[in-house]
């Protein structure tokens, strides 16, 4: 609770072990609050939770097997990347022998001795991920891990998370880059205003959505005719990005094709497709 306002309520979800679970929701939906609770940083006013078989009331029982980066990387600016990792390794009772290897794993091997304050945002982010990997975690919780990374860095993080999950680590990752999450996640938890609106396999979510047929005529003026054809057939249709978007079963694409032909329109594009995660997210959260 923040004053009278519940930051999170009715948030019931499970994350299967050994999967990459995306955690999405609009700003202020309670993602970071949830992560803070799971990491023992704040105490929930009610409810229960378990991580790796232990109640979240006793974070000391599971945190040694959990790696986390929450609300961006935070380190001591006057210490080098390696010194910062050594600090956390000593604190957590882990060997400092592996810190150089971790730095190399996240692409910071050659900057290990540079002070943290000289790092770029992307390098800081990489160090945060290295710190989260320190305990060789069974569960990895990352809040916006690709912030500040260039496309190559995003690809590397994506590959790293996939590899970790393939090796049995459960990855719980929040990101506003829904296209990234769609690529790497097996599982999804979607929040809206502190409540879970979806939890389950990402494929189940996407396949449950109404397919969209995207159509484009030879001329831009054809779009209005196509729109009226779709609407008169009882389908919800809109014109976006110079193309007609029609909600309906993919079989209706053939009917639209024939109707367009009958109206003297030559179609340049006719693509039935499932909505992507971003479109589904907007649909489910009511966000624009």
């Amino acid at each position, binding site marked *: 609770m923040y004053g009278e306002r519940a930051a999170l309520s009715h948030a019931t979800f499970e994350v299967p072990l050994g999967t990459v679970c995306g955690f999405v929701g609009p700003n202020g939906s309670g993602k970071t609050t949830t992560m*803070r609770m799971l*990491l023992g940083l704040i105490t929930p006013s009610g409810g229960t939770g378990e991580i790796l078989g232990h109640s979240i009331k006793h974070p000391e029982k599971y945190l040694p097997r959990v790696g986390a980066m*929450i609300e961006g990387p*935070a380190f001591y600016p*006057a210490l080098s990347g390696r*010194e910062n990792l050594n*600090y*956390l390794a000593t*604190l*957590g009772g882990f060997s400092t022998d592996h810190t150089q290897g971790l730095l190399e794993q996240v692409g910071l091997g050659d900057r290990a001795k540079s002070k943290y304050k000289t790092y770029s945002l992307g390098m800081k982010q990489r160090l945060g991920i290295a710190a989260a990997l320190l305990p060789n975690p069974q569960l990895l919780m990352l809040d916006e891990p690709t912030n500040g990374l260039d496309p190559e860095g995003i690809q590397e993080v994506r590959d790293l998370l996939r590899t970790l999950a393939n090796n049995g680590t459960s990855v719980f990752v929040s990101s506003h880059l829904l296209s990234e999450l769609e690529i790497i996640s097996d599982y999804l938890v979607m929040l809206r205003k502190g409540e879970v609106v979806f939890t389950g396999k990402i494929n189940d979510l996407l396949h449950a959505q109404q397919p969209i047929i995207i159509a484009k005529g030879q001329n831009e003026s054809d779009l209005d005719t196509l729109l009226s054809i779709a609407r008169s057939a009882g389908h919800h249709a809109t014109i976006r990005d110079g193309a007609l978007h029609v909600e309906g079963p993919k079989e209706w694409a053939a009917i639209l094709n024939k109707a367009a032909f009958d109206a003297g329109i030559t179609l340049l594009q006719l693509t039935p497709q499932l909505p992507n995660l971003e479109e589904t997210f907007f649909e489910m959260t009511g966000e624009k």
Partner: protein
Amino acid sequence: MWRVAFAELRKLRRPTLFLGTMGAVVFFSALFSSLLFLLIDSPQGNSDRGRVVGRAVLGLATGGVQGFSSVGGFLGIIALCVFAAQTAQEYTYGTLRNLLVRQPGRLRILLGKFVAMKLFALVMIFLAAIVSIGASVILAPGAKVSTDLWFGPDGRQAILTTFVNVIISVIGFGTIGMVLGLLLRSPISAISIGVLWLLIVENLLIAVKNSLQDWLPGAQLSAIASGGTPRGSAQSIEYSHALLVGGIYVAVAVTIASFLFVRRDVAN
């Protein structure tokens, strides 16, 4: 707790902090002790706030540690700043959440940090003792002060007693700094409020009403360092009184700060 302490020492030993602080300790310890001997005949006095410490006093068994006990209060201010900064910066850098994820036992974190900073303060005090006593030994002959009693049985006892008193005082000041760091969560606020209170507010209050010096925390801790006589005071504070009142202040502050640290959410 020890893991936290060892980790914290990694931070405290970084050259800028360690050498910078120890450099200040060496400079001021040498300065305080040197002035005692170099200004021994000055009508303006040779100790803090124009106090005169004559040859007869400096020639006693306690003469060798006069400079060291004078610098004790100053070491306390340094300790307050270091303890406050090292504690509060966990909030400003946002690193506290890293610490709590790796060590969820909040009291252990607090104790571990305290132990590490105490070790840092011990090095500081030990260095100050060596420098100030060393400077006294070097400058005493030139000021025609006898050092015969300084290293006799009473002299050694005086060194030990002063060393222990300075430790208690400095740790007390440091603890108050740590408490301010925890409560204010900003190094600048914690240090400025702590230093302003100790150097200005307390002195103003004592100037207005002298009897207040028996009850103000900074005066008690300074009195402990000097074995019962606060620096520049018109009347003395008994050592046992200073120990009791200073101890109560520190204990109450530690209890409140620990309670808040354990219970408070780490929201950013």
